[in-house]
């Protein structure tokens, strides 16, 4: 417990499991290739690099587009819209439910029930109601993460000390002023944290929707090339999605620290 790694030691320790996984992969890939030189399940790194070069830098034979960028742009647009709308809804309703007992009494049970509906279970309904275009994909993300954000934020409001609210009111603050000047700034860091935690589910819903009906997108490509087991495309796509999600998470963490330094003191 009292032995702590040095800075360099920490870095080495952090890298160790990654190197281990990579080594296991390379060995397993070489073994499968020795048995079947056309094996597609565990392609060697060189082939994945080849596939990356093809999808990221060369125009596609069929569409003439550079598929990785088309897919990334399509997916990020859906994700940004979905998460953006969900965040806005989460903030407005979370704040209203937390601050106003009348709203809470009306909406909190509804939100509690809605948040328990597995979004994937109503996907067929969404497709029929909202069509197969962009809208249903964005709606799936909103339905998937919106209720969680609402509940998390209303809980964060409830956790604020009651004395603080009473004090603001006795100093003459209106409900609006309490909500906007006292409560809102205090729950903003929590909002960003909740969005960070929602990134995983948001990607899950995005890729599920793209797998079912789409003409471009990261999930679309993975489920398309799955038809002929093109792991040399799938694995780099997974790595790319992971990197994108990690960068978003990191950016949100930095944003939170830069905007609300008091929350981290």
């Amino acid at each position, binding site marked *: 417990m009292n032995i702590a790694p040095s800075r360099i030691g920490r870095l080495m320790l952090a890298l160790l499991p990654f190197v281990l996984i990579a080594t296991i992969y390379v060995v397993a890939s070489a073994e499968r290739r020795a048995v*079947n*030189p*056309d*094996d*597609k*399940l565990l392609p060697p790194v060189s*082939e994945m690099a*080849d*596939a990356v070069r*093809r999808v990221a830098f060369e125009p596609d*034979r*069929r569409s003439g587009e550079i598929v990785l960028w088309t897919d990334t742009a399509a997916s990020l647009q859906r994700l940004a819209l979905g998460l953006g709308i969900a965040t806005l809804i989460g903030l407005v309703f979370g704040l209203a439910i937390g601050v106003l007992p009348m709203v809470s009494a009306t909406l909190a049970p509804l939100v509690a029930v809605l948040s328990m509906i597995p979004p994937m279970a109503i996907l*067929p309904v969404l*497709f*029929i109601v909202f*069509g*197969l*275009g962009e809208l249903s994909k964005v709606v799936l993300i909103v339905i998937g993460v919106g209720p969680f954000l609402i509940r998390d934020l209303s809980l964060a409001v409830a956790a604020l000390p009651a004395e603080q609210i009473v004090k603001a009111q006795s100093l003459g603050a209106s409900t609006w002023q309490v909500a906007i000047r006292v409560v809102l700034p205090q729950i903003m860091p929590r909002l960003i944290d909740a969005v960070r935690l929602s990134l995983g589910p948001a990607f899950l819903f995005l890729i599920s929707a793209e*797998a*079912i*009906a*789409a*003409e471009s997108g990261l999930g*679309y490509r993975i*489920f*398309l090339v*799955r*038809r*002929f*087991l*093109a792991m*040399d*495309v799938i694995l780099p796509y997974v790595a790319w999605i992971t990197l994108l999600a990690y960068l978003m998470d990191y950016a949100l963490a930095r944003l939170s620290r830069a905007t609300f330094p008091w929350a981290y003191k």
Partner: protein
Amino acid sequence: MALCRRRRHRQEVADKYGITINVTQINDYVESVNQYTAGKFDGVTVTNMDALTIPAAGGVDTTALIIGDFSNGNDGIVLKKGKTVADIKGRKINMVELSVSHYLLARALNSVKLKEKDIKVVNTSDSDIVGAFKSKDSTAVITWNPQLMEVRAEPDSTLVYDSSKIPGEIIDTLAVKTETLKDNPDFGKALVGIWFETLALMSDAGDKGKTAREAMAKLSGTDLAGFDTQLKTTKMFYTPKEAVAFAKGGELVKTMELVRTFCFEHNLLGEGVKSKDAIGIAFPSGETMGRKANLKLRFDASFMQMAADGKL
């Protein structure tokens, strides 16, 4: 296919050859083919096109042991407010991209001198095709039965092209690992035996056949009427003799030439593949297509011939 799931019967035949056959039903077709290619199974029911693009292109030497049937109207193109194939121009089409539906599309476009650039493909899961067609923004779908029956029932919809225009090109086979078959010919004999005995039962005109078809209909998620309708648009090879004649005929070679050209043009043989000859295909006549050193898909009629001659 719900064939040979009747355990007792399977057991009898398997006992005759002293082997054990385990049959697993996998509800996702592509996943079943992928599992076979990954080495989890020794055999799989697969179409001629997918046998070429998934296991064969993945280096798994595969033998099409049984030719079960070909689609003779079981796959089709349905348009809303359109009367002919040419009306497909400029539409967005919901279908399973890179599947036999895509092949059917290519053949249909070719018949009216259109190009794939003239339309837009929206990759849509086969289980959501029917729902997709109900929404306003979907005006064209390509799918197979039983979904095809559902979408044809939609108001304003017309079947403009189906696989009866290209008979014998979309083939269902039972494919097995060539290596397993070589090491264990009894495995092939047992499968062929079970297959044609089951088909004989299925085509029985009396109550026995009805009971069998009812059970099969249930296993494939429809009822007897639906199952019989599907059989009408499927050219089944009920006897080994018919299947052998088809496998040995010259049409199969022509079909595979069309199929492999389509697959190559759509990068289905692998991204790095430079020619459609990369993967070799062997036919019962001994004729081959593509690289002889890399024969990965073999049509073998010898086991069906044994069944036809009563020598199993």
